[in-house]
């Protein structure tokens, strides 16, 4: 270290230089996981396997170390058990939302944003917002399509809210459950280095639904090709985030199973989007012109019969 110079500000050397002086010192580095290899190779007592786990986001090694001393086992019906899933800031949530709509091939969503802190706040509120956005936009587009027609009396359909809620919440919880079970089963057969916990998969799926909220608002526009382009763009963006997330988990498996898993993920995602659009935004357009036409012709025939 440089000589102490009274009240002058001292520049601290880099971690590498300090470690060069004292090889046994423990260091704390705050930064990307990418930086870790340089420090860990110098400090003693770190096996390569721990390094791999830290890099690839496997949370189990961290948690077992921390929890070995104190067992904080709160029962699952108390609030304390669920408190650890709501430990997020505004910026973390906003970052995760941004990460879910901008797929970058080098950045794995789970590793970069979730990093063994999966939260339930994001998935729950994004699903709730999506349910209301779809229900409200469906009613508005229904209202706008039939704005000029005198026969159509506008009635808000609240039954659509419950159907939307059931569909979206079951997609956000059952598909991650199935995927997690499938990955666990394959994990026991093939040695994968990457495994995601159930809550991390729920988190990824929840945040990937965020892109459908602005899409649902854009679906109010009654032009068909605008709606289809919106669906395609939304699907591509969030679908690619899902693919980038789950590809490392299946790439070590047999070729066919890996491709089947990834295509199942994409197909289910597409099915949700197209199903929502078809059920909430398209159906009345097909039915009502026929009904109103037949009512009009029915009135004419009734009046014709009456006059004779």
């Amino acid at each position, binding site marked *: 270290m440089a000589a102490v110079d009274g009240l002058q500000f001292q520049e601290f050397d880099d971690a590498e230089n300090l470690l060069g002086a004292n090889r046994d010192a423990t260091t704390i580095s705050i930064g990307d996981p990418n930086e870790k290899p340089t420090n860990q190779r110098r400090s003693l007592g770190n096996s390569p396997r721990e390094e791999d786990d830290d890099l690839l986001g496997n949370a189990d090694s961290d948690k077992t170390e921390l929890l070995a001393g104190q067992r904080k086992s709160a029962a699952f019906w108390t*609030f304390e058990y*669920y*408190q650890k*899933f*709501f430990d*997020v*800031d*505004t910026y973390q949530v906003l970052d995760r939302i941004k990460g879910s709509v901008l797929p970058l091939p080098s950045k794995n969503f789970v590793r970069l944003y979730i990093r063994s802190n999966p939260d339930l*706040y994001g998935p729950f*509120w994004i699903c709730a917002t999506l349910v209301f956005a779809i229900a409200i936009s469906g009613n508005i587009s229904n209202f706008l399509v039939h704005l000029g027609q005198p026969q159509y009396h506008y009635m808000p359909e609240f039954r659509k809210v419950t159907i939307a809620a059931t569909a979206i919440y079951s997609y956000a919880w059952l598909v991650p459950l199935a995927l997690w079970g499938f990955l666990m089963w394959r994990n026991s057969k093939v040695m994968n280095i990457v495994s995601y916990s159930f809550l991390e998969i729920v988190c990824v799926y929840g945040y990937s639904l965020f892109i459908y909220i602005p899409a649902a608002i854009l679906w109010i526009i009654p032009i068909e090709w605008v709606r289809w382009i919106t669906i395609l763009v939304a699907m591509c963006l969030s679908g690619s985030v899902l693919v980038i997330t789950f590809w490392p988990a299946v790439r070590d498996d047999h070729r066919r199973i890996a491709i089947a898993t990834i295509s199942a993920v994409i197909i289910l995602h597409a099915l949700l989007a197209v199903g929502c659009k078809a059920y909430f935004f398209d159906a009345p357009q097909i039915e009502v012109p026929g009904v109103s036409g037949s009512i009009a012709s029915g009135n004419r025939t009734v009046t014709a019969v009456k006059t004779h």
Partner: protein
Amino acid sequence: MNETDLTGPVVFCLALGATLLLAGKVHFSYVYGISVIGCFAMHALLNLMSMSEVSCGCVASVLGYCLLPMVTLSSCAVFFSLKGIIGTILALIIIGWCSLSASKIFISTLAMDGQQLLIAYPCALLYGVFALLTVF
């Protein structure tokens, strides 16, 4: 915020119901039901998100006091209809005002830093339901 005072909130809820009555809508039961459900939901959410515990009375007190701008919105509805662009913008401003003040009190009481917007969003949904009641 150690003393939970429910007088103010009850007076404001009654004032909201009275101004809605002046506009021709009898919605006392809806106001009561939405307040109770919203209070329980916010109580659950705040207990999950903060380290210190909150009582239901404290949550009810804060939510009730921050309902005051909604009372001004519904008194505006007596004089002119809110079903237009101006009404919508006014309703959005009032919702934002209510939810930001409620979330500010919550995070200062419970020492949850960096989570103001996360608390403001559910509050905005709750006050949005009140605004729907007022506008439509």
